[in-house]
């Protein structure tokens, strides 16, 4: 007997099989993930977790007896009151107590299993794309990557590629018919033999001339010529470091109720989740504003109330200031999401739009405006359709196809994810699609 400790062996032997299963069930799992995410709290969305998919598509069929028909004969343990000849009412469904269940214990209706966090998010965010992902900033120090990029004809001796050089040298020598030292030796030996034997057939002279010719050739054609030299070419490319700063702007004046804040929070969470999937480093800045703006921490951002008017431009100015101080636009990808109920000091609208157009949008990758509603549809569906807010109208004039800006209205919790998908859906150019 011997004992082997396998505990240190690399685990995850089933990973490949698991991935194959996921690939096979992908469409089903995707559907299940969408449904599961609707039921979940935003905070838990990135936690992975159990999903249920219909068992039918991943079912492994086999020949086996059907559940009904025919005459069956089976033995059960634990008889209490029956005697031979008793007749029992057949249980309502299927074979009742006597059935042995499906062969592998698998339920017929659903197949439930746990997804890892990564699997869940991959499916959850599949087909979404960050616009303008291209602007990735190069950081100066210690982020160079050296990788081989072929060969060149000059360089330092240390980077000489001996293999390459010798290969070229060999082909050149063959092409120019440089004499082989072994052959020369052979001719010299023959000459020596002939001279010793006192040969008179004139062969000596021929040989001597040939040797002379070959020796000259060997001198003229060098073993290694400068044209043979090849040096490894190392290319240094700066490593792009993708990092993003995400600005959450929210109106916290009294008109924003908890429901609205909750909607805004869900949207921000999704955006954050999404950014963390695409960028290695994501910083979040929370700016809340009433008639004046302030950078705060997350807790304060979502939970404290302030009273005061609503001046959106104050938040934009604050954002511009922070960007300038801490997140220079040439080193960071800037994303901003603004949530508001659409109320703004009417005299401020023009100013906000101007700020957006001239300062914020040029330095941002994307700017999303989310107008949160109260969630009561009655009023909207009523006779008096609610008028668009002044801010909405002001922003709407600003939106152009080529500007990295989008705006949406959200009234209900379940709209958040669709709206989010809509905003970030991968858009293929029609020309490309054809």
């Amino acid at each position, binding site marked *: *007997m*011997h*004992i*082997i*400790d*396998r*505990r240190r*062996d690399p*685990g*995850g*032997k*089933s990973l490949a*099989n*698991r*991935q*194959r*299963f996921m*690939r096979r069930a992908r469409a089903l799992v995707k559907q299940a993930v969408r449904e599961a995410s609707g039921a979940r709290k935003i905070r838990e969305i990135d936690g992975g977790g*159990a999903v249920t998919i219909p068992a039918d598509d*991943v079912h*492994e*069929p*086999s*020949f*086996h*007896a*059907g559940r*009904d*028909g*025919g*005459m*069956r*004969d*089976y*033995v*059960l*343990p*634990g*008889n*209490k009151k*029956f*005697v*031979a*000849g*008793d*007749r*029992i*009412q*057949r249980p309502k469904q299927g*074979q009742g*107590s*006597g059935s*042995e*269940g499906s062969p592998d*214990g*698998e339920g017929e209706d659903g*197949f*439930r*299993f*746990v997804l890892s966090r990564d699997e869940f998010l991959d499916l959850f965010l599949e087909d979404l794309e960050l616009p303008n992902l291209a602007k990735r900033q190069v950081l100066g120090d210690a982020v160079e990557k050296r990788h081989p990029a072929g060969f060149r004809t000059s360089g330092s001796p240390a980077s000489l590629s001996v293999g390459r050089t010798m290969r070229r040298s060999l082909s050149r020598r063959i092409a120019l018919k440089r004499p082989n030292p072994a052959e020369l030796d052979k001719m010299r030996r023959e000459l020596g033999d002939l001279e010793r034997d006192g040969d008179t057939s004139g062969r000596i002279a021929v040989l001597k001339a040939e040797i002379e010719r070959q020796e000259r050739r060997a001198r003229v054609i060098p073993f290694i010529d400068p044209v043979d030299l090849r040096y490894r070419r190392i290319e240094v490319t700066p490593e792009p470091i993708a990092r993003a700063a995400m600005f959450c702007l929210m109106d916290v004046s009294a008109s924003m109720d908890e429901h609205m804040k909750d909607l805004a929070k869900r949207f921000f969470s999704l955006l954050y989740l999404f950014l963390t999937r695409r960028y290695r480093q994501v910083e979040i800045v929370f700016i809340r504003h009433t008639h004046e703006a302030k950078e705060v921490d997350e807790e304060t951002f979502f939970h404290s109330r302030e009273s005061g008017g609503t001046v959106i431009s104050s938040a934009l100015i604050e954002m511009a200031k922070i960007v300038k101080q801490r997140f220079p636009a040439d080193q960071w990808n800037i994303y901003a999401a603004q949530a508001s109920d659409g109320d703004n000091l009417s005299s401020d609208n023009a100013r906000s739009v101007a700020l957006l157009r001239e300062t914020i949008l040029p330095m941002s990758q994307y700017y999303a405006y989310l107008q949160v509603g109260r969630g009561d549809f009655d009023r909207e569906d009523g006779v008096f359709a609610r008028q668009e807010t002044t801010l909405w109208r002001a922003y709407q004039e600003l939106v152009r196809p080529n500007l990295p800006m989008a705006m949406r209205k959200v009234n209900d919790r379940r709209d958040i994810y669709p709206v989010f998908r809509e905003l970030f859906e991968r858009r293929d150019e029609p020309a490309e699609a054809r």
Partner: protein
Amino acid sequence: MARARKTTSAAPPAAMPREPLFTGRDWDFDLLDRVYGAIGAIADSELKLDIYPNQIEVITSEQMLDAYASTGMPLFYKHWSFGKHFVRNETLYRKGWQGLAYEIVINSSPCIVYIMEENSATMQTLVLAHAAFGHNHFFKNNYCFKQWTDATSILDYLAFAKNYVAACEDRYGQENVEQILDAAHALMSHGVHRYPGKHALDLKSEQRRLEERQAFAEQHFSDLWRTLPKTASRRKRDGEDERRRQMLGLPEENILYFLEKNAPRLAPWQRELIRIVRQIAQYFYPQRQTKVMNEGCATFTHYRLMTRLHEAGQITDGAYLEFLHSHTSVVFQPEYDDPRYSGINPYALGFAMMEDIERIALAPTPEDRAFFPDFAGCGDAYGVLRDAWANYRDESFLLQFLSPAVIRKQKLFRLIDDAEDEEIVVASIHDERGYKAVRRSLSRQFDVGRQDPDIQVADVDLAGDRKLILHHNVVDGVTLDGKDAAKVLHHLANLWGYDVKLLEIEDGATIAAHDGSPSRAFR
């Protein structure tokens, strides 16, 4: 206690009160070694077990989950269905709905026993007794395993299979390989040989058979018997069909074998993949035939070994109680109306029968003498058990050894559920008139040959559209599950390359038919 004393005097050196092997729940490799030695001594001297060398592998729970997914084998080719089993087990385990097995044992030589690091010292002792001795002895000695599996080469074969499948994936694409494997897996239960093929005879046995034949002929020859009707005319009529079937080796119940050899459109690598699935199905076939015996043997062995260790003072009372707790939950048989009931527990049935065999051999009642004249009161309980372990499978074992005492203890009763009848009839119960019927019925219930529907490749329409015709010989009117049958036939049609038809036949009459057409025939 008195009984323990008695054994002491019978076997003086072995049973002196000794130091316990361990006291706490912690274990180390040194302890495993000592425990193995102590168990081995009893297994050798008292039970006289004959085992393959053991290879104990300590693994974590993660690795146990991995092992679950690939049917316990240490290496296996890759396929999504194993991933499916993995995610299901993982979910059940993570949610706490299902514990993990304490061990997995593999029928190979050396016999590989996986034990979990989480187990306590007592559990490791139990696991070693159960797997490294109980299962191991069974694997090495039972005729099913001897006949159908080669313990020394299985790991090499699995390594070959894994590499071959991986190489095919590289060459022909993962999807194409997966398709073949899906189809082959669907037919796995019908990819085993149930009867050994003919072996080439050696000269000696040829000689012996010749002599036997001659002796028989001399004794029995009678010219009067030449009244048998000549079959020549019939042969002429059916000659063509007969010849075709003979050339294809039909009828053939091993569908995968038939496809591997005869499917017209498969490439050689595809045949090899089918062969791999078939070989693995064949390797596992004995395990399906011997669930009750295999688990019964291992459970009986561990119970006996643990009890002896305790009697000798080598495990403490506390450890013994821990063992008993685990043991009793393993051999628990819920009754039919219990919500926990999920079929007959092979551990419980096997253990109960083997304990009863021991009782019958040592202290039989008149009833036992009537039922088991061969060995009742023979005194050599282990001899009888070893013989049973070696020469039976579940179906024959139950038929031969299920005693009235066990039937009474488990209160077994037999139901007949005829679809044409309004009600279910209690046919027999655990009484004088019922024992034999219950025994016969239970034995059939464990007969793999009856569990799997009897489906055979019957004919091929070579002159027409090359349709493959299969017959399902229906027993007691139980037809196939139509939905699944259609799916399997679809796979089968893809492998065959042309249409297939499955006829369900009872008493010569076709009662149902299923068709399958290839959607993406392999080529």
